[in-house]
């Protein structure tokens, strides 16, 4: 059953990724091309998912929107992991006041509601995909720092670390050689979860107009644009909504599945 989740999650995630990659080189129509004569067209052979109020092809926009979602989340997770993991590893390796400092700093960051602060950052720094990446990324840093530190602490107590130490290796070398490989599974699972959260955050920011800017399509903005058309063309809201749900569901299933496969301890404890 757990394996099934993993495969479904992987399949969905791969589909989303493939869609985003295909959209780089091909979409049925240029996603920003207006065709006002054919606005609000229903689903048809020419427009599989219909057209929006400006006559743009919804399928093409969803495909291109996958790009915006994924690129923002990839970079946000990359930023969070890139800064958070070293911080967490440092706290675990050094302990003492360094550990305290890093952990209290993450406590502080956790005290702020993430999405609200992301809204604040983009409102101050100006809306746009770049600032959205930054805002979402900043909130990934403490998550990764905390998970890394929590998982790395017990590793540092193990005998092989003591052995490595006595053979004269430094903290950095031990972290790279022994600690990180041992906690990689947990980090990968965490990254998948953060990735899903990143997609929701990007959609949320774009929905309020602070994320990806036109003409680059974005699922969140499509949802917002569809809002007042809900009576005339309800499907306009359904498609981007379904895209967000599917992408997030896929990543969550994948994350759950990976955790069960990669982390035998968790499986046993169930």
């Amino acid at each position: 059953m757990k394996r099934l989740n993993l495969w479904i999650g992987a399949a969905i995630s791969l589909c989303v990724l493939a869609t985003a990659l295909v959209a780089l080189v091909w979409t049925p129509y240029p996603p920003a091309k207006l065709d006002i004569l054919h606005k609000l067209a229903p689903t048809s052979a020419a427009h599989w998912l219909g057209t929006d109020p400006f006559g743009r092809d919804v399928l093409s926009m969803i495909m291109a929107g996958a790009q915006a979602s994924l690129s923002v989340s990839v970079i946000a997770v990359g930023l969070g992991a890139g800064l958070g993991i070293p911080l967490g590893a440092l706290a675990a390796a050094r302990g003492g006041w360094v550990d305290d400092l890093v952990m209290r700093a993450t406590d502080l960051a956790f005290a702020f509601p993430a999405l609200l602060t992301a809204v604040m950052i983009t409102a101050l720094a100006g809306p746009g995909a770049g600032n959205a990446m930054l805002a979402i990324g900043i909130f990934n840093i403490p998550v990764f720092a905390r998970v890394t530190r929590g998982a790395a602490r017990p590793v540092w107590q193990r005998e092989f670390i003591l052995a490595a130490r006595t053979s004269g290796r430094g903290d950095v070398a031990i972290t790279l050689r022994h600690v990180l490989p041992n906690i990689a599974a947990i980090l990968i699972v965490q990254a998948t979860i953060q990735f899903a959260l990143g997609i929701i955050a990007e959609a949320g920011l774009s929905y309020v107009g602070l994320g990806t800017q036109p003409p680059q399509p974005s699922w969140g903005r499509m949802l917002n644009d569809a809002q007042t058309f809900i009576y005339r063309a309800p499907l306009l809201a359904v498609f981007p909504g379904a895209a967000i749900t599917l992408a997030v569901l896929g990543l969550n299933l994948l994350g759950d599945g990976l955790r069960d496969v990669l982390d035998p301890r968790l499986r046993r404890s169930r």
Partner: protein
Amino acid sequence: MNKIIAAALAATLATGTAQAAKDTLSLGMVLEPPMLDPTGGAAAATREVVYQNVFEGLTRIDQNGQVVPALAKSWTISGDGLVYIFALHTEAKFHDGAAFDCSVVKFTYERAVAPDSTNAQKGLFEAIAKTECPDPATAVVTLKRPTARFLFNIGFSDTVMIGPASAAGNKTNPVGTGPYLFKRWVKGDRVELARNEAYWGAKPAIASVTFRFVADPSAAAAAMLAGDIDAFPLFPAPETLDQFRADKRFTVNIGTTAGKTILALNNARKPFDDVRVRRALAYAIDRKALVDALGNYGTPIGSHYVPGDVGYVDLTGAYPYDPAKAKALLAEAGIKPGFTMTLRLPPPPYARRGGEVIAAMLEQVGIVAKQEPIEWAQWLDQVFKPQTDYDATIIAHVEPGDLDVYARDFYYYNYKSDEYRATFKQYVETVDPAKQVTLLGDLQRILSRDEPNVYLYALAKVSVWKAGLRGMWPNQPVPANPIAGISWAE
């Protein structure tokens, strides 16, 4: 949640008393006024709340855009068009009990042109040489030169009568002579007015009115459908109208406004200083398709003037949609394909959504138009101020007949034309109505020829109100929501 329960309760109570004719009104608006003094740098939202309700001028503009008497009973104009003698309604009183007489007129007009005045429309007073009071019930206004629209100008929202004692507090506690007095302002939510029982004129039917501010189009539609709001004079969600039309509880009205939606260009900045580039942009934009895409019932225009304005000339054919011609003009002006410009877009849908459509149209002629959403404060600060830091912006100018802005020493388009200024001066100083009309036509033609901005469309007044509401203005010749003429059918 509490709010919903309270609303449900209120609705139940309201139906209980509905047998006696309803005398309350809740009116929806998209934008909240930044403050409530129409003479202190007013925004359209300020005017839409207080003008003709709390404040009145010597004249007022009626729903047909005509000048009618208000605090002035009548007037006579000297043969040379320079001296206006007004007979005043001195029985009128300010809401704080202060008297209205000629000294108030003198105070108001002098205050508006004083160095520290923040009046947004100082130009309306510019022609006044002096105001004199031979007796309290008579005001004599002498002009520097004959001024074609003087009676219209003093009926506009920014020239209303202000009490000397209450002037300082009007921003938050407006005190006027009007049929409604200010009750309270819950910031971010509503302004409440109540009938002025001591009003000098006819007693209005509506006893209390609430202006509710709902910025989000879908929330506005939902509030109307739920019956929370009785009328939305400038309804922000035209795409939902079919649903309201099908519903017997509502009346849908499509009227006109004086709002000119334009793609404003910074004529001082290269390459927009080149008329060929400006014309190319005009050829590149399909106005009809733009209006269709936005679904906002706008009417294409060809200069800074709307159908229905005195002396309107249809110039919409001057730059028909012709991408090939646009490309040729751009090439002639040395603009290479891939040229990048920035569109600064304030919040209203006509700008944000319009920007998306226009950017796509410009792309067809090889121009990359970057869309930059900005807030109103930024727009006023960066675009509208003298540093004019912008390439292009989309904006609706709601002041009626404001051809004067192109003749000003500074206006944010940075349009400088001696020919236009000379023609405008001639128009202002002409007293013969036929000659005025001719000159108005000339002004529009000069604008169309020079195309300092790309003229897009006249904003429609899309309104939804509850069936049974009478006396709503179908059109919006000036920004106003006069409540005094509104009533509920029995």
